[in-house]
């Protein structure tokens, strides 16, 4: 997979928060030009941290790169200012949307295209976004913060597209989206990719991720534990069980393991102690 030129490369990056919390441990990952690469992993595996390191925002969270390097093409960008990394065409849709809730939808999109000096290409980009997400066109004058979660997610992606990215980093884009929209977003990703943008997709929805991706990585405790062509991973039994929900039906004691039991709270006992205390 190293035959094609690389859009982005993460070379053995380690990162930590504060002094002690290690979030990435020599993570290595490559995004070939024109590919869609998916990253899977449990909660807390370090996926978001990986994206932060790529975009340079880890420092805003008290994070620090302790080793390794990130390259856009041949250029090292590790530790650069987020703004400079954006200038290299690496745009991220952050986890949790992070749209500007006090700005209108339209203004949010303008922020996305703020680096585009050329008015015409900005207008084109906007048209493209409205085309992909018609609801945004309808709501263009609404304050973004008042939109539903899904609408906000669309806006977040739309906003990133306004920057005409070379590499698009998506952190859980399907989060909170209705199935139809997830489908739509999958299409959009494919479409964006077809138009020449390389994509890195962090997703919990492995079905979608492996559906659109060409390559995939599995992150565990900050380390890449598995990687390969998406179609291969799809068929790995471990992946199927953990990320695709294969396996025993719900309620299977063996699969779910022993479960902790919680007894209902005894309100009357609580009331008794209280009245004893009072008397």
């Amino acid at each position: 997979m190293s035959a094609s030129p690389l859009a982005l490369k993460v070379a053995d990056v380690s990162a930590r928060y504060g002094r002690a919390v290690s979030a990435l441990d020599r993570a290595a990952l490559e995004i070939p030009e024109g590919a869609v690469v998916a990253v899977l992993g449990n909660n807390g595996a370090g996926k978001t941290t990986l994206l932060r390191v790529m975009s340079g925002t880890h420092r805003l969270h008290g994070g620090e790169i302790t080793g390794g390097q990130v390259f856009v093409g041949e250029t090292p960008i590790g530790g650069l200012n987020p703004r400079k990394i954006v200038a290299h065409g690496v745009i991220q849709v952050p986890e949790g949307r992070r749209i500007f809730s006090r700005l209108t939808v339209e203004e949010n999109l303008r922020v996305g295209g703020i680096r585009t000096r050329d008015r015409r290409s900005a207008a084109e980009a906007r048209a493209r976004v409205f085309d992909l997400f018609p609801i945004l066109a309808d709501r263009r004058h609404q304050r973004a913060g008042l939109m539903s979660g899904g609408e906000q997610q669309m806006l977040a992606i739309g906003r990133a597209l306004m920057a005409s990215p070379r590499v698009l980093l998506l952190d859980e884009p399907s989060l909170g989206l209705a199935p139809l929209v997830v489908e739509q977003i999958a299409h959009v990703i494919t479409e964006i990719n077809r138009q020449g943008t390389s994509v890195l997709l962090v997703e919990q929805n492995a079905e979608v991720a492996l559906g659109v991706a060409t390559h995939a990585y599995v992150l565990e405790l900050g380390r890449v534990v598995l990687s390969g062509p998406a179609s291969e991973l799809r068929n790995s039994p471990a992946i199927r069980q953990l990320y695709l929900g294969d396996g025993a039906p719900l309620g299977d004691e063996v699969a779910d393991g022993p479960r902790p039991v919680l007894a209902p709270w005894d309100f009357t006992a609580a009331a008794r102690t209280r009245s004893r205390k009072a008397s």
Partner: protein
Amino acid sequence: MTYFVELLINGVSIGLIYALIAIGFTVIFKATQVLNFAQGSTLLLGAYVVVQLQERLGFYGAVLAGVAVAAAVAGAIEVFLVRRASTHEHISLAILTLGIDIALATELSRRIGSEVLSFADPWGNRTTAIGPFVVPQARLAAMVVCAVIAVAFFALLKYTSWGIAVRATAEDPEAAALMGINRHRVAATSWALAGGLAAVAGVFMGTAPSPGLTSTANVTALNAFPAAVIGGLDSPGGAVVGGLIVGVVQSLSGGYNDQVSFLGSPLSEVSGYVVMIMILLWRPSGLYGTREMTRV
């Protein structure tokens, strides 16, 4: 009636000066969510520089220099202090500016001493009669300048990329950075603009009918706080309205203090604040401020 109108005119002309300072508060607040207590001493600094240089550079040249110095200092405060603070707690940052204000005001009042800073402005003591009312030309100039500045800021924030960058950064610096916004530049320019505005306000505060600025001018600048809050802390247009309200209320309550002597005197000191409280009870984010949104 004439008396009322006279008071009104006086209130408006003072209110516009408050407005200039208040616009500065709002711009800084909008861009960095910091309440800048150092605005008062920046104003004094600007005025001081103008007075020091007006003989050499002429009035307009000195004003330009004063505005530039005040802008540079305010910008530097952001670049070297606010930005580098170890905390992003807004309260702490406000206190940071208080610390700067204390140091700066101490130095300025040491230098100024009992001097009255008076400007060699082209309007001097000349007045213009509008009907039966006599208005100092300096105040007319203040009105024009203030109106122009207010409109300019409104347009700047609403329509330019800079304005949108300011608002985006204000809300979510990380997301803004991810969009390639240079939040440092945005912050520094807003502070610098506000500093320049303060210098302009300082000059108008010291021109006719005022004989000049004393070293306590930074205290008077405090009146811009209620002005900014009445208008809504993140609304430059609101700052103008707020400034006018405070100015007029102060002037009227002072003028009619005798009629309500049971309220005690001098009323003009508190009246602006009382009106502010009433307005806030009615609209907790000021007249034009963005309402705090709760969307869960």
